[in-house]
């Protein structure tokens, strides 16, 4: 299949905060304007706009992308909004990629925004309607249930302890202390802090979970001939993949994310990656809960099934380890404004590969990284591979 080469050439973001004073539209503009500024482009240089944002129930605004569009620079342009739940933040740049790879557009501005704080009394309320209205909702479920059930399935399958998993929360919150936009960076957090935090839905405790967050992130994507004109450090999209598992989630093996593996296989094939553990230098797997980072590292085939916790304990996934994982600080540390959180991971790989990650820069000049997000009813995997070689 003939495809044009596509690069990310700029990135920008808002602070990730518990409650922004800005409206959703204003947050989108802050991120979009920073991304354009970072590559010295203006809205006139942009051919099309991709908007990523999660449930409209968060904002109480129907047709949310129309509401957001002015803040995303969508006025007078072809605009599309993609939505695959928590997977949206990585799916949006995939959409940006095929807009350009197809030859339809030379430049695309991708903006992901989430303002969760509007939803009262708690944004979990916006998630209650993901459960089946007849067979599940009468049981009074909340969102924590599915994570707790999945975490327990994962722990039981491989005989893992809470301590094995808490190490991820510690690593990511410490990493986030070096991120200038982070909500929950903490250089001094310990495993004991995580293990002693309030039990919400055992095995899930307070510090196993990422926070409710407001924020936005934007990237500029361009065809090769534009990218080379705009920057001497284009970061190429080498592969993309996405996959959806069945919505009959109570029938699946919850201990392994098969759909992430399928999405990764699609992306790796496109990128020519045959040995991901050797050919991928940094990873930003989706970490809304600490066990999810481990789950996803295994789905991305970067560790054997059930072995990501051991690698974490050995320090392999530390910023100075053999495979730095979530050097940004992840959703656990930087924050989790749903769609924006996924694109934050893509932006982190972009900055890391350009050597611009500041205090978070991983050593050894990484040449290729993978970002992944996850969502819907625990069933979608979205994967993007970026490289500079």
């Amino acid at each position, binding site marked *: 299949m003939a495809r044009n080469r596509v690069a990310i050439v700029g990135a*920008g973001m*808002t*602070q990730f905060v518990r*409650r922004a004073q800005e409206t959703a539209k204003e947050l989108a503009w802050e991120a979009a304007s920073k991304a354009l500024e970072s590559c010295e482009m203006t809205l006139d240089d942009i051919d099309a706009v991709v908007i990523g944002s999660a449930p409209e129930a968060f904002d109480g605004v129907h047709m949310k992308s129309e509401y957001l569009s002015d803040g995303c620079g969508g006025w007078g342009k072809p605009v599309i909004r993609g939505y695959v739940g928590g997977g949206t933040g990585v799916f949006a740049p995939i959409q940006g990629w095929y807009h350009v790879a197809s030859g339809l557009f030379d430049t695309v501005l991708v903006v992901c925004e989430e303002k969760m704080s509007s939803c009262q009394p708690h944004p979990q309320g916006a998630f209650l309607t993901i459960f089946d209205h007849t067979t599940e909702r009468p049981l009074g479920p909340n969102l924590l249930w599915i994570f707790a059930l999945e975490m327990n399935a994962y722990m039981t399958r491989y005989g893992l302890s809470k301590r094995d998993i808490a190490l991820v929360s510690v690593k990511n919150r410490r990493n986030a202390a070096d991120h200038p936009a982070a909500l929950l960076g903490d250089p001094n957090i310990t495993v004991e802090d995580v293990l002693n935090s309030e039990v919400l*839905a055992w095995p899930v405790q307070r510090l196993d979970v990422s926070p409710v967050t407001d924020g936005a992130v934007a990237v500029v994507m361009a065809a090769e001939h534009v990218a080379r004109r705009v920057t001497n450090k284009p970061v190429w999209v080498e592969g993309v993949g996405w996959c959806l598992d069945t919505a009959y989630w109570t029938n699946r093996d919850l201990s392994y994310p098969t759909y992430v593996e399928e999405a990764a296989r699609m992306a790796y094939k496109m990128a020519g990656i045959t040995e991901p553990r050797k050919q991928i230098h940094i990873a930003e797997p989706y970490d809304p809960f600490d066990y999810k980072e481990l789950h996803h590292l295994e789905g991305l085939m970067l560790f054997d099934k059930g072995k990501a916790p051991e690698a974490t304990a050995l320090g392999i996934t530390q910023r100075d380890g053999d495979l730095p994982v979530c050097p940004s600080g992840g959703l656990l540390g930087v924050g989790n404004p749903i769609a924006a959180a996924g694109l934050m991971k893509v932006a982190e790989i972009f900055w890391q590969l350009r050597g611009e990650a500041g205090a978070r820069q991983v050593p050894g000049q990484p040449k290729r990284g993978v970002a992944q997000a996850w969502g819907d009813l625990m069933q979608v995997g979205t994967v993007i591979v970026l490289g500079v070689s």
Partner: protein
Amino acid sequence: MKEWVYDTVYLSEKDFETGRVLYETWVPNARYAWDAGIAIGRYLAELKAGRLVGVHCPSCGRVLVPPRMFCQDCFVPIDGFVPLQDTGTVVTFSLCSVRWDMVRLEHPLIPALIAIDGASPGMGILHLLGEVDPQAVRVGMRVRAVWKPPEEREGAITDIRYFKPLE
């Protein structure tokens, strides 16, 4: 990259608690009447009669629960309903101490996936456990449905109050 982070203006929880912030609130008036559907309609009717049923796929031969009118793997219509037992095995569970709005519960709820006897391996449904010490719940535990009395049943998943240990 610090220069590419916008200097976002943010508020503290205290700003909201002390009413220092002006905002509008709105409570949506949204009501829905859902159809149970072909397969779940039968499922509910059988629950009212005190029975659990699954469906049989003629292509892969699996017995699926919750019932569905087509097998999503084979993408063919199912060829009939199959009676199941009201016993099963705990696949995974949680001890949930909070409601969706983070209000703390006095007694934790115990949601669980329960693989139902008579269905194919791995065919679980979401339900609750009861009449059990939360600390004693284990993956692999054998459980049985505790039904509401017939006159209280209304054709709903809650016609089963919860599952309790078999022993």
